C-alpha cells in the first residue's frame, strides 16, 4: 500500500469559487471543495436539486470553475450516465483524444439520493456506467426548510417530524437504510463513507474512486448549521464527534474487502454528539440509550465485516 497522504498533499487549486451562498459553516461546501481538489480540472459535475445546487449557482452567477450541469431531483445519476456515454461516443468519433481522462461526478444531497433520485442511482450502479456518485448527507431536506428524508436518524427534530406531547421527532425505530450496502448489492467495485472533518481521507477516497472504472459511490456526512440547530463554528467539531462516537464510521469497500479508514479504539458515548445539537435537545436519557443500542449494533456489524475490532467499546 502506498504511503498515506497528509494535509500537504492537498492541491492549492480551488475549483469551487468563493461567493457561493451556502450557509455560514456549511460542511457541504468543505466536502465539495475537497472533491473538486481530488478530481482536478478535467471533470464534469452533475448536480440534482440540493443545497449545493441552489446556493452555488444563483443565476447569472456560478461558483463552479469546472463544467457543471443542473438536472432535476430524480435523474442526476441518469444524466451522469448519459454524460459518461457521450464522452465515450465522442472518443470513438475522434472528437476527444482517446487518452484524455474526463471524469464524471454526480453530487447529490440525501433527499436526491435516498428518496427521489434513488431509482436513477440504482440504474447507474446496475448498468456499470463509469460515474462517481457522491451523496452528501445532511440527514433531511435542508434547502426546502428541514423536512424529514429517508436519511433522518431516530429522534431528530425536523419540521415534518415535530416535537410535542405525542410526537418526539423522527419515529423510525430502526437504523436508516444503508446506502453503502445497497451500492454493494449492485456489485460496484468501490463504495466508501467519508466525513468533512477528515478531508485528507475524503480526498484519498475520491482519488481512489476516480482511478477505478465503473460505478462508484461515496457517502459523506454533512453537518448542517440551520437544520441541526448548531453553532456555525461547531460544524467540523460535531462531524468529528460523529466518528469518535461511532454514529458515523469511515470505511471503504473495494472488490469484496472492507477497510475502516478511521479506527476508533475507544468510542465516546453518543450523548456527547447528540447533546451538542438542537435537533436532539428533547431526547430523554431513555431515548439516548435506544440510540446507543443502535450504534452498538452497527459498530458490531462493521467490526464483523472487517474481521477484527477496529471500532472499540464505549469508554467509561
Amino acid at each position, binding site marked *: 500500500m502506498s504511503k498515506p497522504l497528509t*494535509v500537504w498533499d492537498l492541491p492549492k487549486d480551488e475549483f469551487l469559487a*468563493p461567493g457561493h451562498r451556502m450557509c455560514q459553516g456549511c460542511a457541504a461546501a*468543505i466536502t465539495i*471543495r475537497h472533491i473538486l481538489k481530488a478530481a482536478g480540472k478535467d471533470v464534469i459535475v452533475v448536480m440534482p436539486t440540493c443545497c449545493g445546487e441552489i446556493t452555488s*449557482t*444563483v443565476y*447569472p*452567477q456560478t*461558483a463552479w470553475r469546472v463544467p457543471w450541469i443542473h438536472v432535476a431531483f430524480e435523474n442526476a445519476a441518469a444524466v451522469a450516465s448519459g454524460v459518461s456515454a457521450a464522452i465515450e461516443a465522442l472518443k470513438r468519433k475522434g472528437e476527444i483524444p482517446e487518452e484524455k481522462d474526463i471524469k464524471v461526478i454526480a453530487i447529490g444531497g440525501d433527499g436526491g439520493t435516498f428518496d427521489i433520485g434513488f431509482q436513477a442511482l440504482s440504474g447507474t450502479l446496475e448498468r456499470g456506467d463509469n460515474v462517481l456518485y457522491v451523496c452528501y448527507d445532511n440527514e433531511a431536506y435542508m434547502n426546502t426548510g428541514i423536512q424529514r428524508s429517508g436519511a433522518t436518524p431516530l429522534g431528530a427534530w425536523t419540521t415534518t417530524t415535530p416535537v410535542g406531547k405525542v410526537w418526539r421527532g423522527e419515529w423510525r425505530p430502526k437504523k436508516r437504510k444503508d446506502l453503502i450496502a445497497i451500492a454493494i448489492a449492485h456489485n460496484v467495485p468501490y463504495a466508501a463513507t467519508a466525513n468533512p472533518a477528515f478531508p485528507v481521507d475524503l480526498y484519498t477516497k475520491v482519488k481512489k474512486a476516480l482511478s477505478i472504472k465503473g460505478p462508484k459511490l461515496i457517502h459523506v456526512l454533512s453537518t448542517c448549521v440551520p437544520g441541526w440547530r448548531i453553532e456555525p463554528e461547531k*460544524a467540523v467539531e460535531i462531524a468529528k464527534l460523529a466518528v469518535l462516537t461511532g454514529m458515523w464510521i469511515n470505511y471503504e469497500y473495494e472488490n469484496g474487502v472492507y477497510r475502516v479508514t478511521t479506527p476508533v479504539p475507544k468510542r465516546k458515548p453518543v450523548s456527547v454528539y447528540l447533546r451538542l445539537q438542537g435537533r436532539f435537545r428533547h431526547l430523554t436519557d431513555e431515548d439516548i440509550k435506544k440510540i446507543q443500542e443502535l450504534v452498538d449494533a452497527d459498530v458490531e456489524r462493521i467490526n464483523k465485516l472487517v474481521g477484527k475490532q477496529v471500532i472499540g467499546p464505549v469508554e467509561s
Partner: protein
Amino acid sequence: MSLPGWKQIPLGAVILKPGNSVEYKTGEWRTLRPEINQEKCIRCRTCWMFCPEGAILEVEEPYKTQAGKEYRLTYKVNYDHCKGCGICANECPVKAITMIEEAI
C-alpha cells in the same frame, strides 16, 4: 451588481464565466471577523483545509517570528468572501485565530 438584459443572456441559462460568483461579496454577511495572529500561527494548514469558502489564503510570503522561527508561508483571510463562521478559530490547534466583532 448590474443585471444583463434578456438579449444579452445566452440560451439555456448557460453561464459562460466560470466562478463568477466571486463578484458577490459574501463578506457582508459577517458579524465576527477572524484575525490570524502570525506570531502564534504554526502554519499547519488546518484553517485552510476546513474553510467552507476557501477564504483562507495560503500566500508564499516568508515570515519571521519574534522568537526567530522562520516560515515560508503566511495565511491570510479573504475578507471579501469570509462569512465569519468561525470554524477556523474553533479548529486552530494553537488558538492563533480570534473572532472579533465587526465594527459598524
